[in-house]
């Protein structure tokens, strides 16, 4: 007798809202549940913030802003994506909005781009003792290249998504990414 593989029974996708009861509880106003979500996600949110803005104190402020905003907007979360994905996208928005807001207060001389990253490039070949780790090298990237690199290579966003977030073309984000990788290679003395 020939064995026939039966198809998997069709089931509706389980929304993460249902999969994570703390999300539902927090959406209903349960602060303890929300604190558990905070404990679960804070390092990832903070990691993104600190890699985007470098300043750890500022990153901590932004992390708090993200969770306060998440609490305010949690009733709008419908579970179409994982809670972590939703929160992560919110983190990107908070960081980018803060950057825009701060940009209004900066002079054009302090603006963050689009330099050639010469500060990162060594004036002489790096000796083995000069090697820096990837985290430190990312921190020294020019801000525009660092944002694209963090969002693409660290966080896994696609160019189209990053372009939408930053309000640029995907061609521009590809160029920034390539530039970031070349600068990192120089810094890492590969």
């Amino acid at each position, binding site marked *: 007798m020939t064995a026939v593989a039966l198809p998997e029974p069709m089931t509706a996708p389980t929304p993460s809202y249902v999969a994570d009861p703390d999300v539902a509880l927090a959406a209903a106003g349960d602060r303890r549940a929300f604190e558990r979500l905070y404990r679960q996600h804070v390092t990832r949110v903070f990691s993104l913030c600190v890699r985007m803005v470098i300043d750890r104190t500022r990153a*901590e402020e932004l992390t708090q802003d993200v969770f*306060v905003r998440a609490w305010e907007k949690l009733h709008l979360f419908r579970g179409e994506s994982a809670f972590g994905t939703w929160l992560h996208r919110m983190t990107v928005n908070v960081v980018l909005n803060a950057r825009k807001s701060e940009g209004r207060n900066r002079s054009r001389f302090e603006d963050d781009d689009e330099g050639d990253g010469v500060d990162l490039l060594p004036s002489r070949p790096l000796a083995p003792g000069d090697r820096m780790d990837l985290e430190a090298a990312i921190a020294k990237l020019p801000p525009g290249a660092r944002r694209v690199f963090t969002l693409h290579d660290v966080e896994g966003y696609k160019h189209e998504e990053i372009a939408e977030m930053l309000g640029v073309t995907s061609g521009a984000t590809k160029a920034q990414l390539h530039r970031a990788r070349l600068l990192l*290679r120089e810094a890492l003395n590969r």
Partner: protein
Amino acid sequence: MSVYMPLDCDGFAAALADYLEGDAPDAVRAAVEAHAEECAECGALLADLQAIPVQAAALPALTPSRDLWSGIAERIDARVLPLERPAARTIVPARRSWARPAVAAAALVVATAGITYVATRARYEEMPAATASLPARSTAPESVTSPRQQVAVVTPPPSQSGGNGSGTTMGQPGAQRTVEKTPAAVAPLGRSPSGTAQLVRRETRRGDADSVMSATEPLYDREILKLRTIMKSRRSMLDPKTVAVLEQSIAVIDSAIAQSRSALAKDPASGFLANQLNHSLEKKVELLRTAAMLPART
């Protein structure tokens, strides 16, 4: 970009970005790979650039230097709740950049009106015994004109206003205006976590102004103290211009509160004054809540 095959090092460099993004045509891909095999330097470059994203994706999560939850919890506790709008309200304030100062200015005006009211002892809704304390003057109220408890408010001559001169906004001396006195109008307060607004409405319907204030002021004071503490801790995170505007608005509201309290001390039975004071306190709480929820440095 023009790529000629077979590639030299410059051609390789020019084609590299598209190759890594998967955007290069097959012929170019093959040429890039062929050159990378022939040229050690370009081969090392390609290997390094392919390794960087792999290492980046594997970077460990970073941890804040302190527990951030307490700061988040404070701000969540102080979150701004949408205000209930009284059903009978016909004037909806526009949400524009000048709305906040305008609200503060309005609070000051109504407080000044309250002082005017005290100065003239125009307690027309009260019992006759109250009218006995009215000063003898020609600008006494004419009558109660409506079954809906309309109260005639007479603006006194400047010498009797006792205010800071802003009483002229109520009209010329001797002019008369009428204010509707309804429960919705006297307690235009919002929902608050402490239930302050509901308590104010309930107490106000009883018409006991003194009990209103004795019941609600401690609630407001506690809330304001808590919000002030949060504001103090967040001061350095906010834009100095924002802080300056907030402080200015708070000062205006504080002035209105002080004047209302002073007037209420002279006329403790006045429901009108109690509600003006409550209104100013509520505005202060609302402003502080909004400030507590402002994102850092915006």
